[in-house]
């Protein structure tokens, strides 16, 4: 549950780290993504599920900072900012104060996984997933399939696609649910505001 989120998160981050696999395309892709350590983008997340009559769509902005984590800022259908950092997951209130979100415990682990990843060792992700790359450096797609039977029973696959930047993430669950996240307007982040820097931790 929470851990799966952690895996998925790592998976996304792994994509921007330098991986140690033989696949030339995969390496090119990861090298290319790693050239953008601070990125801003707008996102649209579409979730479909057998339980839902129509897909859920949420929109907002994303700030990703290599080595720190990300700010997931939902603007519609409600406003909420989540800070997903190595140490913890927190909800930011209007004043930028962080309220820790449940599952404080698993975060130490997420943090460790992230740190190893960002130190150039996406081992954790490669241990958990088979990775297949397709396309060209200008238009690529990476498909992560869980190795662990336990997880494969729940999670079908995670697909990342993009060109110069990461353009989308698709998460397919075994129960027929799927989450599609598309990024647009991706650009170098430039400097962080004081609030952003604080939310992502001062490390």
């Amino acid at each position, binding site marked *: *549950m929470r851990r799966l989120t952690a895996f998925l998160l790592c998976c996304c981050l792994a994509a921007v780290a330098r991986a140690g696999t033989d696949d030339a395309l995969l390496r090119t892709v990861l090298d290319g993504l790693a050239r953008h350590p601070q990125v801003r983008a707008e996102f649209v997340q579409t979730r479909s599920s057998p339980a*839902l*009559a129509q897909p859920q769509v949420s929109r907002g902005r994303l700030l990703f900072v290599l080595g720190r984590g990300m700010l997931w800022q939902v603007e519609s259908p409600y406003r909420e900012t989540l800070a997903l950092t190595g140490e913890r997951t927190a909800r930011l209130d209007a004043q930028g104060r962080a309220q820790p979100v449940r599952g404080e*415990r698993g975060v130490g682990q997420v943090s460790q996984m992230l740190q*190893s990843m960002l130190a150039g060792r996406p081992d954790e992700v490669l*241990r958990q997933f088979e990775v297949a790359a397709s396309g060209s450096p200008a238009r690529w797609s990476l498909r992560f399939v869980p190795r*662990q039977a336990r997880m494969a029973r729940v999670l079908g696959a995670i697909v990342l696609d993009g060109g110069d930047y990461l353009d989308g993430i698709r998460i397919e669950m075994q129960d027929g649910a799927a*989450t599609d996240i598309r990024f647009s307007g991706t650009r170098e982040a430039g400097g962080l505001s004081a609030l952003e820097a604080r939310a992502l931790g001062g490390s």
Partner: protein
Amino acid sequence: MSRRGLHLRAAWFAAATVLVALLGAWLLFGRGGSPLQTDLLAMLPATERHPLAEQAVQRLAHANGDRMVLLVENADDARAKAAARALGKALAGDKAFASVLAELPAFDLAQFVAPYLAHRFWLLGDDDRAALAQPGYDPAQALARHLNEPFVAGVGVPLADDPFGWLQHWLEQQPWSRSPLLPEDDLLVAHQTDPAGGERTLVLVTAELAGSAYDDAVQRRALAALARAEQAMQHDDPGTTLLRTGAVFYAAAARAGAERDVHLVGWISTGGIALLLLWAFRSPGPLLLAFLSTAVGVAAATTATLLVFGQIHLLTLVFGAALLGEAVDYSIQYLAARANAGARWEPLAGLRQVRPALLLALATSLLGYALLGLVPFPALRQMAVFAMAGMLAACLSVFGLLPALLARPARPVAPSLVRLALALQRAVARLGKGRRGLALLLALVLLAAPGWWLLRHDDDVHLLIAQPPALLAQERAIRDATGLGNGSQFYLVQGASAEQVLQREEALAQRLQALVRDGRLHDWLGLARMAPSQARQRADHALLAPLFADPARLRKMLTDAGLRADAAAAYAAAWPGAPLKFEDWLATPAATPFRYLWMGCGAHGCASLVLPQGQDDVRVLAAAADGLAGVSLVDKPASVSALFGRYRGYASVWLLAAVLLIAPVFGWRYGWRRMPRVLAPPVLGIGLALAALGYLGQPLTLFHWMALMLVLGVGANYAVFLHEGEPHAAHRPGAMYASVLLSAVTALLSFGLLALSSMPALRGFGLTLLLGIGGTALLVPASRPVPADTAP
């Protein structure tokens, strides 16, 4: 009594001894299983006011006690996992283990979650409870948030069954979702980054022992199996290390340490005493008789201990090895009397001559050990029984057995020894004469005063329990990696009913949650978190009730948010469900790993345990329980330490009282003017031993004080031996002091060797006796006039 009478008495005594020895042998070896006790906990006194707390300590020790917790560690992930699997297989194939858990059984998330669905409207996570209680709570927004969670939503609990995510949040709070160990490749795995930045994989393997961790046979078999498996593991998967913890390792280490001590103290002191007696009596006969008398004492002591306690503790055994040196004193006195009598030796007359001294000495020893037995420490009681039985039997053997075996006169005590004793006696007696004696006293006091000033004390329980640092380090590493609690501090929550216990746990949990928020506690493990009280469930249910009061509105809210109409209707219709009953939950397989936390209900009401994790500062933990009804922090090490401290205080008072009691006895027997001189050597011996401990920087413990009690008893004996014996040995100046020195050196040899023991308590005990008895034996001649120069 005639010669025949003597022989008859000896025959009776020998027969009785053989019977006692046979009974002892049967108790030791005839009943299957070793009666040797290695449980460290068994040595500690009952400290908790509530019997339930004492039970809880035992329960926790055994929940973690009768199993090995192993972590297989390797920098290479695949190697670590392969090694763990191989280790699991190797151990599972051995009869030493009842069960081994390495590879997890097949496990289905959906099956795990299903039982909770019926109770989903009664269980709320802490955050949701707080949010729902807010006046401005907007359920529609909570719904939208859950449906739009980044990346994934509704894993484990399907969205249709839990659109608001409440059950999922509650499940995430459960201990199995919070463990740092994750199932990976069907193993429980943690990944750690070492300081150098390299990643290491740790895999958990647990093995349940096929018996008690304190059972000798189980211990040996399990450790041998583990050693074999470890060797194979290192051969097949090089670079793999094995971290281990469990009572079995501590018990084995304690046993090994004690065995080493018994060998060291037993053999060296036996050898030393043998050489000394050979030199002193110049014939092997007396040596054999002295050992015979000691052996009688040891046989009686062991049998009595086994009869009273059913088993014999390691500590008793080590202490018993040292007791040899004191038990041999009685026969030495008798043998010395024979040697001094020369050709005029008559066994019965000799016995009459030493009788007052022996009985006085025996009485002081028995009194000393009886007082030791009054201290409510199982370990000390056992030592006291062992010592009392041993001393009594050794002394009786001098009366019953030895006279028949010592009919013929013997050669006098070695002249070299007598000359040495005489020279020493003269020098000390001269120094202690008249004004010079006062000056000597003053000088000694001045010399000792800074040492007394430097004295500190220490009541740490680890004096009694010396745990190998390597094992402690591994235990710490395992605790860090697995999140297991330390097991020595926990909360005992009591109530009239299970419901009240759970409610009280919840009150405690509120305090603990605050500590976690402040970063002062890592986490805690408690039953109320997994099966909340009915009151809490009713309250949670009541928080949700307004939402479900109007099913049509709820259905609309759900369909507006995007949920399918049939799913919305099914969700609304599932209300109200039923609360989770504690007894039902306790019977589920999910509760199995946590069932030991429930103490059950009995005459004292019901009780449960709450284990705090990641905070070793007792003050913080105690503050959390402060003022909560039915909640108490049980801290066994601290309780034992406090008890040590209290008895250390009593012991110092007792010592003073004993000196004040002996004074009039000596005054009556030796005259009031001579009394201070007779009493001075043991008192000075104690004072100088204390000063030396101060200079050595040894903090005083209860065990030092107990040793000082013995110094007083034994030191007074030496004064008595010298005063009672000197008139009978006037024709051989120095001979009586030579026998006192013999007694002292044998005591020093055995007790002094305890100073090399692996157990800190016995080390302090031995060192104190070494210093105290040594000092007293040297000072004793000062209590008598200078012996005449006319040697025959």
